[in-house]
């Protein structure tokens, strides 16, 4: 404890927070982004936590190519609108089963766009301008099926272009390899589109496999992809069942179990298996450690990259 103001030294604030603190920032109807890419690097403590808290009517900005983490949010009834150029699991599920079903039944609205329009929208948000122009998509159905995308004549050369509206994100959740206690986040590999999501968000919470020292980050500052997350969440195995580059591969058996359950809802209108999945792995576990215990140490330690 400091006893004299004369001797007091200002102390840098640590940004390590509990997942529940981060989730408490999310309210019904917000725009929340979930980072990663198809079968990798999704912040699953956040995804399961949002479901467990019963958050509703979210506009969910997925990754440029989203995986089944968005499908899960849809299955659990958290999403009203999805901003994603793809929702699926590649060979594990070419189209997300809950995504497909919810859209066909009119329960979820899609903000229809392709990956380039998606990044143009994120960049507009990051630049604090109302839109970014984009060329590809002129002549297609996009401006018809997504009325937020407007065709316009550019004032410089008079060319016909699309105006992609800014995709402003209230809170972004990401998953990365390491961070120091001050929110300097580094990835193993390229980090997919997470930087663009971070730049478009008002606040970002990043789950990491490990918190490391500031000295460790400063060994290679060029690798710092996110120089100032608002909150860092300790999350060993926090992307499970998806991969975390440098740490573990995706858990294909677990993902296939989810797909089977979601497909039963999609094909036979039977919510039973999906309800059981949610009970066992999402709403049932008391916390992340409980979740990991339910998955099982033997399974987790078998997710080897090499």
């Amino acid at each position, binding site marked *: 404890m400091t006893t004299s103001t004369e001797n007091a030294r200002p102390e840098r604030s640590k940004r390590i927070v509990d997942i529940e603190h981060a989730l408490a920032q999310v309210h019904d109807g917000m725009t929340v982004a979930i980072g990663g890419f198809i079968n990798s690097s999704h912040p699953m403590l956040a995804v399961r936590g949002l479901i467990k808290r019963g958050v509703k009517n979210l506009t969910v900005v997925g990754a440029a190519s989203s995986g089944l983490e968005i499908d899960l949010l849809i299955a659990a009834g958290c999403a009203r609108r999805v901003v994603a150029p793809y929702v699926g699991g590649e060979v594990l599920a070419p189209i997300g089963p809950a995504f497909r079903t919810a859209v066909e039944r009119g329960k979820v609205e899609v903000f229809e766009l392709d990956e380039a329009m998606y990044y143009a929208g994120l960049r507009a948000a990051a630049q604090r301008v109302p839109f970014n122009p984009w060329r590809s998509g002129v002549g297609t159905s996009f401006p018809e099926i997504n009325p937020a995308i407007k065709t316009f004549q550019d004032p410089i050369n008079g060319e016909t272009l699309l105006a992609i509206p800014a995709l402003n994100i209230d809170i972004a959740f990401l998953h990365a390899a390491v961070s120091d206690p001050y929110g300097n986040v580094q990835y193993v590999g390229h980090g997919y589109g997470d930087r663009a999501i971070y730049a478009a968000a008002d606040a970002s919470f990043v789950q990491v496999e490990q918190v490391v020292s500031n000295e460790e980050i400063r060994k290679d500052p060029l690798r710092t992809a996110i120089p100032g997350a608002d909150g860092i969440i300790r999350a060993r195995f926090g992307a499970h069942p998806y991969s975390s580059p440098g740490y573990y591969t995706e858990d294909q058996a677990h993902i296939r179990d989810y797909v089977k359950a979601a497909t039963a809802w999609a094909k036979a209108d039977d919510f039973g298996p999906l309800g059981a999945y949610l009970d066992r792995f999402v709403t049932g576990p008391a916390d992340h450690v409980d979740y990991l215990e339910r998955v099982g140490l033997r399974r987790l330690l078998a997710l080897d*990259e090499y």
Partner: protein
Amino acid sequence: MQSELQATNREIMATVLARDLADGEWVEVGANLPVPRAGVLLAHLLWGPNMTVMIAMTKANVLNEPVIEEFQLITDQRATRWAEAYYLHDDLVENMKFRRKGVFFAGALQIDRYGNSNLIGIGADYRALKFRGPGAIGVCNATVMNSRFHLVVNAHDKRIFVPKCDFVSAYGWGSGGKDARTRLGLPGGGPRYVVTPLAVMDFEDESKRMRLKSVHPGVSVQQVLDNTGFELLVPAQVAVTETPSADELRVLRTRIDVQGALRN
């Protein structure tokens, strides 16, 4: 048993794509797209030493790799062993000048006679789709910005080849004419080939209507017409698709597709 020298239809499809590629071109190798992947690597190994192949969001040149392992998922971290550079995904999708040397491969739920295609869904009413598709992914942009693209589908039937797409997520030749793209300010490359398990189609120079180019060995012209939901242009002489040479087949089977994705 399959004969050592007889190519499968998927190996023939890959070879068609390979023969369109030239040295120095830039090509994305998607995951779980075994036919385009094999075509790209075949061209790279045999006549494209300066090609750039993008594997799992890395820039790579795998010319000297004896066997190029196939990955099931685009996020497979092991593919980064070949990386000369990482593409941040937003850079990859938003930086467009390098795509002038690029060639792209697109799949589709529906394709019309002018090579317009749809990945969004099936149904007359967008708000009440009968079938929700996967979404446009990066296809809308990549089919505009690359020097050309090929449509590659795993089936040839009237569900795919339709008179009119319910939605157009990748612009081909619009409602026809060789200036259909430049009129809209789009680069003029557009769709070049449509490759299916039955045949190869291209687009007639002036009208840009889809035209039968060749049928694969053992496939009749009538069979193609019967499975196409619009009128294809058919030249007086329809060639049989060229099959891979013995050398191409050897490279395919011993270096590119060791696991046999194209043979199963």
